[in-house]
C-alpha cells in the first residue's frame, strides 16, 4: 500500500476505530442507552425508523438547499458590488461584519413572528448563516487585482466591466468554490437550529422530539444523518472546485 492509498483510507480507518472504541466503552461500562447509546443501538434505531428519518432528512435537505441557493445569489451579488467599488466596500463591509457577529439562532424567534412555524424560518436561517463567507470571498477575489494588469487592460480601452468579467470573476472563482464548501456546512447548521424550535418537520424537529421522548438512539441517528448530508455536499463542492479551477491548485499537481 503506497502513501496515497493510505491517505485516502485514513479517515475511514479512523472512523471505524472511533466507532469500535465507542462501542467497546459502552459495553464495558454498561452505559445506559438513555444517556449515551452505543453505535449498534443507534444503527438499530436508524434502521427501525428509517422511513421517518428519511422523511425528515429530505425536508432538511431541500430546505437547506433553498436557503443555500438564496445565499449564493445574494452572496455573489453583494460580493460583486463590494469587490468592484471602493466606496461600496467602505460602506457595506463594517456593517456586514457586525451583522455576521450576531448569533443567527437568535433570529429564529423573530422569523417565526414574521413567517410562522415551518419552512420560512428554516430557509432564512440557512441563508443568513451562509451568505457571508460567499460574499467575502467573491469581494476578496475581485479586489485583489494586480495594478499592472489593470494598466495593461485600461490602456487598451477596457471598461470596468471588461476588467471584472475577463479578470476579476475568473480570478475569484477559486475563492468562490472555497467559500461554498464552508457555506454549505453552515447552511445545514442554520436549518437544523431553526427546525429545533420553529418547525414540525426536519432533522432539527426530530432531534428535539426524540430527545424529549428519551429516544437517544434516534436523536443520534438524526445527528448522524445531518452530518452525513453536510459531508457529502462538502465533498461535492470540493470535487467541482478541483475540476473547474485546477489552475489555482497547481502546487498539488507537482508544479
Amino acid at each position, binding site marked *: 500500500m503506497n502513501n496515497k492509498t493510505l491517505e485516502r483510507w485514513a479517515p475511514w480507518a479512523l472512523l471505524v476505530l472511533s466507532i469500535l472504541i465507542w462501542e467497546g466503552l459502552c459495553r464495558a461500562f454498561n452505559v445506559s442507552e438513555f444517556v449515551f447509546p452505543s453505535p449498534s443501538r443507534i444503527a438499530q434505531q436508524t434502521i427501525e425508523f428509517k422511513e421517518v428519518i428519511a422523511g425528515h432528512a429530505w425536508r432538511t435537505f431541500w430546505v437547506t438547499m433553498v436557503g443555500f441557493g438564496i445565499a449564493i445569489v445574494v452572496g455573489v451579488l453583494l460580493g460583486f458590488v463590494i469587490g468592484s467599488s471602493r466606496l461600496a466596500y467602505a460602506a457595506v463591509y463594517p456593517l456586514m461584519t457586525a451583522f455576521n457577529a450576531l448569533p443567527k439562532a437568535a433570529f429564529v424567534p423573530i422569523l417565526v413572528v414574521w413567517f410562522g412555524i415551518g419552512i420560512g424560518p428554516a430557509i432564512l436561517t440557512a441563508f443568513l448563516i451562509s451568505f457571508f463567507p460567499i460574499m467575502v470571498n467573491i469581494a476578496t477575489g475581485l479586489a485583489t487585482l*494586480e495594478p499592472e494588469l489593470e494598466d495593461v487592460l485600461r490602456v487598451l480601452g477596457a471598461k470596468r466591466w471588461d476588467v471584472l468579467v475577463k479578470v476579476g470573476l475568473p480570478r475569484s472563482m477559486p475563492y468562490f468554490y472555497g467559500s461554498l464548501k464552508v457555506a454549505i456546512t453552515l447552511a445545514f447548521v442554520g436549518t437544523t437550529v431553526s427546525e429545533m424550535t420553529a418547525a414540525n418537520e426536519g432533522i432539527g424537529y426530530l432531534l428535539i422530539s426524540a430527545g424529549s421522548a428519551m429516544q437517544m438512539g434516534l436523536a443520534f441517528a438524526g445527528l448522524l444523518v445531518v452530518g452525513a448530508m453536510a459531508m457529502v455536499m462538502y465533498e461535492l463542492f470540493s470535487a467541482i472546485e478541483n475540476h473547474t479551477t485546477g489552475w489555482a491548485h497547481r502546487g498539488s499537481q507537482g508544479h
Partner: protein
Amino acid sequence: MTQDAFVDFQNVWLAYNDELLAQNHFAVEDINLQVKQGEFIAIVGPSGCGKSTFMKLTTGLKMPSKGRILVDGQPVTGPLKISGMAFQASSLLPWRTTLDNVLLPLEIVEPYRSNFKQKKAEYVERARKLLNTVGLAGYEDKFPWQLSGGMQQRASICRALIHEPKMLLLDEPFGALDAFTREELWCILRDLWTEQKFNVILVTHDLRESVFLADTVYVMSKSPGRFVVKREIDLPRPRDLEITYTPEFTNIVHELRGHIGAMRKTGAAINQ
C-alpha cells in the same frame, strides 16, 4: 516644436494629487522630450525617480498637472490604445493558456473586439506566428505556470504586441530574469523592433541593456524626477551581443554610470 516627433512632451509636470500639487511636490518635473517615429528610447535612473510615472503619462493613464503631451500629433486625452505594455511581472492570467493570454487584448481593443468571434481563426494564426517569432512555438496550449520565467516574459511581450501597437512600453521587463535569459530576450526584442519598427520606451535600471537596445538613453534624477542627461547611442546597427564587449560600448556604459553616480552623491549630500 519639432514636426516629426511621434511622442512630444512639452514642459510636463505631474503631481499625483491636488494636495501634493498645492505643496508643489511633483513626481516628475519639467519634462521636455521628443521621440521620432520608430525610435527606441530607454530611460534609466535610480528607483523611485518617476520612470513608471513617465510611462503612465505617455499612455494616457495619467494626465499631466501642467504642460502637454502629444502622441502622433494628437494631444493625449485618455488611455492610448495604440500602445502595448509589459512589466517586470508578466501578469499572465493563470486560467488561460499562453495563446489565450496573448489573444486577450484583441478581445478588448477596437476594432478587433467587434469582430473577434468571426475572425478568431485569423487572430489565432497571428498569435501563433508571434509566439513562434519569440521562440514559444509548441507552448501555445500550455498554461503560464507551466512556463519558465523567461518564457512567461516572452508571452507577456507578445500580449503587448498582438494588436500591432505603434508604441511599446516596457517597465523593467527583464528585471526578474537571470543574465543569460535576459540577453536572449534583448535579442528577441531587438529583432521584433527591427522588423516592425514600432516606438519603444524602455524603462530599466540596467545600463548595458539600455545601451545595447536603445537609440537614445535618457537619465532621470530622483526627487525631483527630471530628465538630466540625453545620450544618443551611435553604435552601428544591427547590434550583436558581441558589441557589449567592445570598448565603445563600455565607454558609453561608464559615462552613464558616472551621471548616475554623481546624482546619487548629490542626493546623499542633500539628505544629510
